[in-house]
């Protein structure tokens, strides 16, 4: 579980996060949504410890991350998996070596054991035949799946994803969303996803937090987001014609 209390973050004069509190539970897919510039990425980077913050606290299972010693922070980071927006695979390593990377850095496993574990995870993301390819030879969807495999290979307790399906076609995006959701439930991980994608919200949003201007404007789930009267949320959710029609259909059905 990750507990965030009254988080404030500024860059010079710009106050980006204005006292956000949230709880992200284990085994749930937690989505952070909001418009560009709402503070989602800054919030995620604070959670990851890439940004320091002026006020508030972030607790990982009761331990305040910022107060940990360097060694403990390092141990904690070994329990974190991250899927970056652009996948962030290491260009000079093959797909299999990319997946083995966290094992090489944080475990004392033998090379064969690492390879076996990497292959199990690659199989889990349906990439068992791609291990000798270079990242540049893989499609966007494959790269995302490799990034997921790399993030989960060391059995993380926490999984963070920054726009995991940006730049993917709708079908592949759903495959990636479902994969993350299944892995979260299967390995009982606390997953936090930063997204703009309303399809993801509808598919996998066990817990959704809506940010606006550095504040938490709404909190709920995929079941409640379409029934909310919160104007800020409805403006965002129904900004596309497709979702406007979905809403009209839901309202019609309820009548």
């Amino acid at each position, binding site marked *: 579980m990750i507990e965030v209390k009254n988080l404030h973050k500024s860059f010079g004069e710009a106050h980006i996060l204005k006292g956000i509190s949230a709880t992200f539970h284990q085994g749930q897919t937690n989505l952070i949504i909001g418009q560009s510039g709402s503070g989602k990425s800054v919030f995620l980077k604070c959670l990851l410890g890439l940004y320091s913050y002026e006020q508030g606290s972030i607790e990982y299972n009761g331990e305040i991350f910022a107060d940990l010693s360097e060694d403990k922070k*390092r141990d904690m980071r*070994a329990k974190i998996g*991250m899927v*970056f*927006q652009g996948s*962030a695979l290491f*260009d000079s390593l093959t797909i299999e070596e990319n997946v083995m990377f966290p094992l*090489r850095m944080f475990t004392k496993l033998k090379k064969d054991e690492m390879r076996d574990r990497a292959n199990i995870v690659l199989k889990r993301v349906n990439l068992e035949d791609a291990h000798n390819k270079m990242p540049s030879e893989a499609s966007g969807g494959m790269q995302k799946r490799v990034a997921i495999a790399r993030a989960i290979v060391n059995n993380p307790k926490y999984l*963070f994803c920054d726009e995991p399906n940006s730049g993917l076609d709708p079908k592949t995006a759903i495959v990636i969303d479902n994969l993350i959701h299944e892995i979260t439930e299967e390995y009982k991980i606390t997953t936090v996803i930063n997204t703009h994608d309303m399809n993801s919200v509808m598919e996998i949003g066990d817990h959704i937090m809506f940010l606006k201007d550095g504040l938490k404007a709404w909190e709920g789930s995929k079941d409640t987001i379409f029934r909310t009267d919160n104007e800020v949320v409805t403006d965002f959710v129904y900004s596309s014609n497709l979702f406007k029609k979905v809403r009209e259909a839901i309202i019609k059905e309820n009548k």
Partner: protein
Amino acid sequence: MQYLHNIGTYFLMIIELFRKPTKWSVMRELILKDIDDLIIGSIGIVAFIAFFVGGVVTIQTALNIDNPLIPKELIGFATRQSILLEFAPTFMSIIMAGKVGSFITSSIGTMRVTEQIDALEVMGINSLNYLVFPKLVAMAFYPFVISIAMFLGVIGGLMACIYGGYASVDDFITGIQQEFEPFHIVYAFIKTFLFAFVLATIPSFHGYYMKGGALEVGKASTTSFVWTSVAIIIINYLATQLLLS
């Protein structure tokens, strides 16, 4: 003010790259890869340039000696002094600022742009140690490249002398041996080690701290070449003043 800030950040980077070392089994592979990329990969171009520039230095010296009272051995002597003292360590390092420096800046810069450095940081890896330290160790072998440049520069000069008919082989070799100061070799290698440090760290600094996209990677490579060259020239002046004057 920005210059001071950058200089401060550069020195902090140097301190940081020795902290939280990467696992030795991983580091060993990174060092070997960087030796291959930065040292072995540079030998071909260094050999080519050194051989021909050595020849040109000999021809220029020979053509400018038109006084019959000046002994022909001076051609070998001047070639040796030019190559050992300045051409091999300094001129070659400026060429390497273009070749090795651009490679380092663009490879680290691309990792920055594509969030690969963030990925290392999230995993709790000291990205400076992981990326820059192996390059620094690899560049410790840079004097080996400069030794090849020195040797081939003199051989190029000898060839140009023989085939151009400017002096006899005996005259040239006598010139090479004349008034040889072993300390000049020490001076050249002290400079080479200093240049190796600069060649590994300044381009790394420009790549690591760059902001923006692909266009900025190109700009960072150019800036890194300019500042590495400036640092080499200044260090060359200071080292010469301190060690030879």
